[in-house]
C-alpha cells in the first residue's frame, strides 16, 4: 500500500510538472502575441483553458469612430435567432461567403468576393459598373477623370475632400504610396500593373503614371479590386470606403461598420458581418436558419428549393470563361480541324441543362458579353458524326490515348463537367483518361505542358477590358496561354490594340481577333461560369457583377 501510495505521489508530481510545462508553453505563446487581443463581443466559452481563445489577429480593432454621434448603442446582432422578429428594420447585414478574408491587407487578399468586400473599405481609382444597357463601363471613383498625355503617360485627376478612416486626406501621395507598396509585395495583383514604371505627383490631386510600354487598358486595370488606395499612415487598416474595418478574426468573422465621414452617399446598412462558410450545404443551411442574410456561390441544384422557401436569387453569367484547352505543341492538337472536331463533339447545351439545371450560359465568344467589343460568334453545334468524319479525314486513329488534366473543387461542378466532356470525347472514338491533380500540382503541369487537354476557367476580363480576355490568353507566350497557341496575325492584332489609344480602332481589332480565335479553336468553348447569390427577400439594392464582385453601398432592408 505504501509503495503504491509513493508511486501515485510521484505520478501526481510528474503529471503536474507536465501540465506546468504545457501551461508555461501556452503562456509563452500568449505573451509573444504582440498586441493583447481585445475581448470579443461574444462571451468566450466557459470551458476555455485561457482567458481569450478568440481574436488572434494582430490587427483586431481600429481606433473608434472619430464622430461621437448616435453610435454607442450596443450591437443588436444575435447570430442565430431570426432577426425579423427582433427588429423592425434591420441595419446589420450578415454575409455567408465561400471564401474567407484571409488578410485585411487589400494588396494581398485573394478570391474576388473577399476582395470585393474589402473594396468597401479600400477603394479603387475607377470603378466598373453597369451602364443602362447592362454593359460594364468605367466610372469615376477616387479619381474623377483620366487623360492620356501620350502613349506611355496617363494623367489622372483625383477626387478632392476624401478622408481616410484614421484621419488624413486622400491625395496624390497616397496613390503613389499604394502603387509602390503593391509592386513591392509582388503577388497576383502586382502583375496587372507591371507596365507602370513610375508615378509622378504633379500636384496634390493630379498624378501621372509613366509606362514602360504602351498599355491602353490601364484605366480599366485601375478598377481591379486589389489595386486599391491605402493610407500611408496605416496601410492594412485605413482606407477611404463607406465602411471601416472594426474587427478581423480569421476563419470566424470580419466586421465592418459605416464610416460617417464618407465622401459619397451614406450607405443605409450600418454594419456588415462577413462569415466564411466553406461548405456549400452548410452555407445554404445557414441562410435557411437565418444565421446569415446573404450567401454567395449558391450551388445550382439548390436554387429551386431556396426560391420555394421565399429567398431571392440573383444569377448572372460570370466573367470566368470555362473551357478545355488543347496542348497545341502536341500532335494532333496542332491541326485546326481536329480542334474544331472536338468542339463539334461536345453537347454544351446538355451539360448546362443536366448539370447546371439551365443556370449557365453557353460561351458565345472568348470576350464576355458585358465587356465592350464583345462579338457573338456561332456556337459549334453538337454533331458527333461530323466530328468523327473530321478526325477520320486527318487519319486520327480510333482509340487515340488522350490525357485530360484537371483539378477539382475549384469551380462550380468542375468534376462533373470534366467527366461529361470525357464521355462525349469517348463517343467519337478517343480513349480519354481524366487525370485529377491538386491545384498546386496542376498549375505546374500546365506551365510545363504535360497534358493533351486541360480544363480551366479564366477570369481574364476581370477588370472589364477585352485586353484581359484576349492578350493574356491568346498572345504567344502570354501568362494564361497554357495552350501554347501562337498565331502571328492574332499577336499583331492584339499588340496593336494594346498600344492604340483610339477606342474605335481597338474595338475593330478585338473583333477581328475574336473571329480568328473562334475559328482556330485553341479551346473547346464551353460556358461562362454562373455567379449565383441568394438573400433574404427584404434585402434590396445589392449589386452583383459578372466578376463575382458586389456592392452593398446602396443596399437596404425594406421595412415590414
Amino acid at each position, binding site marked *: 500500500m505504501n509503495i503504491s501510495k509513493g508511486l501515485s505521489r510521484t505520478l501526481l508530481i510528474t503529471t503536474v510538472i*507536465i501540465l506546468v510545462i504545457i501551461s508555461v508553453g501556452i503562456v509563452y505563446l500568449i505573451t509573444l502575441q504582440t498586441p493583447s487581443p481585445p475581448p470579443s463581443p461574444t462571451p468566450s466559452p466557459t470551458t*476555455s483553458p*485561457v482567458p481569450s481563445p478568440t481574436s488572434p489577429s494582430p490587427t483586431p480593432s481600429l481606433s473608434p469612430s472619430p464622430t461621437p454621434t448616435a453610435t454607442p448603442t450596443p450591437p443588436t446582432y444575435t447570430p442565430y435567432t431570426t432577426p425579423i422578429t427582433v427588429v423592425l428594420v434591420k441595419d446589420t447585414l450578415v454575409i455567408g461567403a465561400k471564401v474567407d478574408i484571409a488578410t485585411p491587407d487589400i494588396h494581398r487578399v485573394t478570391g474576388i468576393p473577399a476582395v470585393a468586400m474589402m473594396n468597401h473599405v479600400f477603394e479603387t481609382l475607377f470603378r466598373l459598373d453597369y451602364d443602362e444597357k447592362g454593359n460594364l463601363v468605367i466610372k469615376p471613383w477616387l479619381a474623377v477623370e483620366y487623360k492620356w498625355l501620350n502613349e506611355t503617360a496617363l494623367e489622372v485627376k483625383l477626387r478632392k475632400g476624401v478622408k481616410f478612416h484614421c484621419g488624413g486626406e486622400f491625395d496624390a501621395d497616397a496613390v503613389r504610396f499604394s502603387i509602390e507598396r503593391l509592386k513591392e509585395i509582388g503577388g497576383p495583383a502586382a502583375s496587372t500593373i507591371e507596365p507602370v514604371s513610375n508615378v509622378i505627383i504633379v500636384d496634390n490631386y493630379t498624378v501621372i503614371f509613366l509606362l514602360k510600354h504602351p498599355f491602353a487598358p490601364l484605366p480599366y486595370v485601375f478598377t481591379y479590386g486589389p489595386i486599391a488606395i491605402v493610407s500611408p499612415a496605416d496601410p492594412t487598416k485605413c482606407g477611404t470606403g463607406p465602411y471601416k474595418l472594426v474587427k478581423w478574426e480569421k476563419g470566424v468573422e470580419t466586421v465592418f461598420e459605416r464610416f460617417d465621414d464618407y465622401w459619397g452617399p451614406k450607405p443605409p446598412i450600418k454594419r456588415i458581418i462577413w462569415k466564411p462558410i466553406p461548405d456549400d450545404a452548410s452555407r445554404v443551411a445557414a441562410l435557411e436558419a437565418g444565421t446569415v442574410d446573404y450567401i454567395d456561390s449558391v450551388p445550382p441544384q439548390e436554387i429551386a428549393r431556396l426560391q420555394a422557401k421565399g429567398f431571392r436569387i440573383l444569377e448572372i453569367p460570370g466573367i470566368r470563361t470555362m473551357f478545355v484547352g488543347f496542348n497545341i505543341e502536341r500532335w494532333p492538337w496542332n491541326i485546326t480541324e481536329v480542334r474544331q472536331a472536338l468542339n463539334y463533339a461536345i453537347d454544351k447545351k446538355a451539360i448546362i441543362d443536366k448539370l447546371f439545371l439551365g443556370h449557365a450560359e453557353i460561351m458565345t465568344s472568348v470576350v464576355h458579353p458585358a465587356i465592350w467589343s464583345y462579338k457573338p460568334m456561332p456556337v459549334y453545334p453538337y454533331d458527333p458524326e461530323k466530328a468523327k468524319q473530321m478526325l477520320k479525314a486527318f487519319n486520327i486513329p480510333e482509340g487515340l490515348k488522350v490525357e485530360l488534366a484537371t483539378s477539382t473543387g475549384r469551380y462550380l461542378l468542375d468534376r462533373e463537367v470534366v467527366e461529361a466532356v470525357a464521355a462525349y470525347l469517348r463517343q467519337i472514338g478517343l480513349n480519354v483518361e481524366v487525370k485529377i491533380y491538386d491545384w498546386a500540382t496542376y498549375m505546374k503541369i500546365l506551365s510545363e505542358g504535360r497534358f493533351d487537354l486541360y480544363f480551366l476557367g479564366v477570369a481574364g476580363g476581370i477588370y472589364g477590358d477585352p485586353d484581359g480576355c484576349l492578350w493574356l490568353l491568346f498572345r504567344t507566350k502570354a501568362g494564361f496561354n497554357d495552350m501554347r497557341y501562337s498565331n502571328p496575325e492574332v499577336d499583331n492584332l492584339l499588340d496593336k490594340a494594346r498600344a492604340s489609344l483610339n477606342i474605335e480602332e481597338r474595338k475593330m481589332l478585338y473583333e477581328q481577333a475574336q473571329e480568328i480565335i473562334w475559328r482556330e479553336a485553341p479551346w473547346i468553348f464551353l460556358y461562362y461560369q454562373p455567379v449565383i447569390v441568394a438573400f433574404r427577400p427584404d434585402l434590396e439594392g445589392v449589386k452583383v457583377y459578372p466578376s463575382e464582385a458586389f456592392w452593398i453601398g446602396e443596399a437596404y432592408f425594406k421595412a415590414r
Partner: protein
Amino acid sequence: MLKYVLVKRIPQIILVMFLALTLSFYLVRAIPGDPIEVMLGESPATPEMREHLRKVLGLDRPIHEQYLIYIQRLLSGDWGKSIFMGIPVRELIFSRFINTLLLATCSMILSIMIGIPLGVIAALKRESIIDHIIRGVTLFGYSIPVFWWGLILIYVFSVNLKLLPSIGFGTPQHLILPSITVATLVSASIARITRISMLEVLNQDYVIAGKAKGLSQYILLRDYILRNAIIPVVTIVGLNFGTLLTGSVVTETIFAYPGIGKLMVDAMYMRDYPIVTSGIFFLALMFSLVNLLVDILYTYLDPRVKLERSISV
C-alpha cells in the same frame, strides 16, 4: 518516475520533434507545385515577377540553407510568416489550436460520458435485448459519415427547430453541434472497447471469487471490474484525443469552425510552407505530450505497470 520522464521520454520526444520537423520541411517541398505557382497561376505574371516574389519569400536560396535558417528562427521563437496571409504563423496556429483544444475537450468529455456507461451496461446485460440495441446504436454511430451527420444535425436543430446556431464560433452554443458530431464517432468506439474489455474481465476468476465472497455488485464493479477493464479504454481515449487535437477537418468545414485541421489542410493545398512545417512541429509536440500523459496515467490506474522498469532492465 521523474527520472524515467526526464531521462527516457523527454529525449525521445525531442528526437520525434526533430524528425517530424525535418521530414515535413523536406517532404512538403518535395511534392510538385510551389506557392509561387499557386499565387501567380491565375494571374498574368511575368517570369521577372515570379523571381521577385521568390526572392521576397526567401525561396530562391538552396533548400538546405532554407532549412538551417528555418531551424535557427524556430529556436528563437520565430515560426515564420504565412506566405499567403503575411501574418505570423505562431499566432495563427496558436489561436486555431485553442479552438481545436476546446472542441476536442468538449467532444471527449461527451464521448466518455456516453461511451463508458453504454459499454458497461452492454457488457453487464450481455446478449440481452439492451445489449443488442446498444451494439446496434454504436455500430450506427461508428459507421455514419461525419459530413452527412453534421448536416442532418444542422437541418434539425438550426433550420427546423431554430434552437442552435448552424455555423460559426464564439459562444458555448456554437460548440454543441460540432461536439455532438465528433462525439458520435468517438463515443461509439469507446463504448465498443469498454464492452469488449468488460466482457474479458467479467470472466476472470477473481470476479467470480468476489461474487462468491458476497461483495456488492457496485463495489465489485467499481473496484474489481472497471479498474481492470478501463486500461484499454484509456488507450483508445488517449489516441482519439491526440487525433482530435490535430483537428477534425470535415467537422470544421461543415460548421465553419476555425480549428487547426482546416488551417493545415488549406495550407497544404496552397503550399503555404511555413504553416505546414511549423504546424506539424507543433501538433507532433502536442501529440507526444498527450501520449506521455496517457502512459503516466496507466501506472496510476494499474500499479502493475511500472514505467521505471523499462530503463532499469
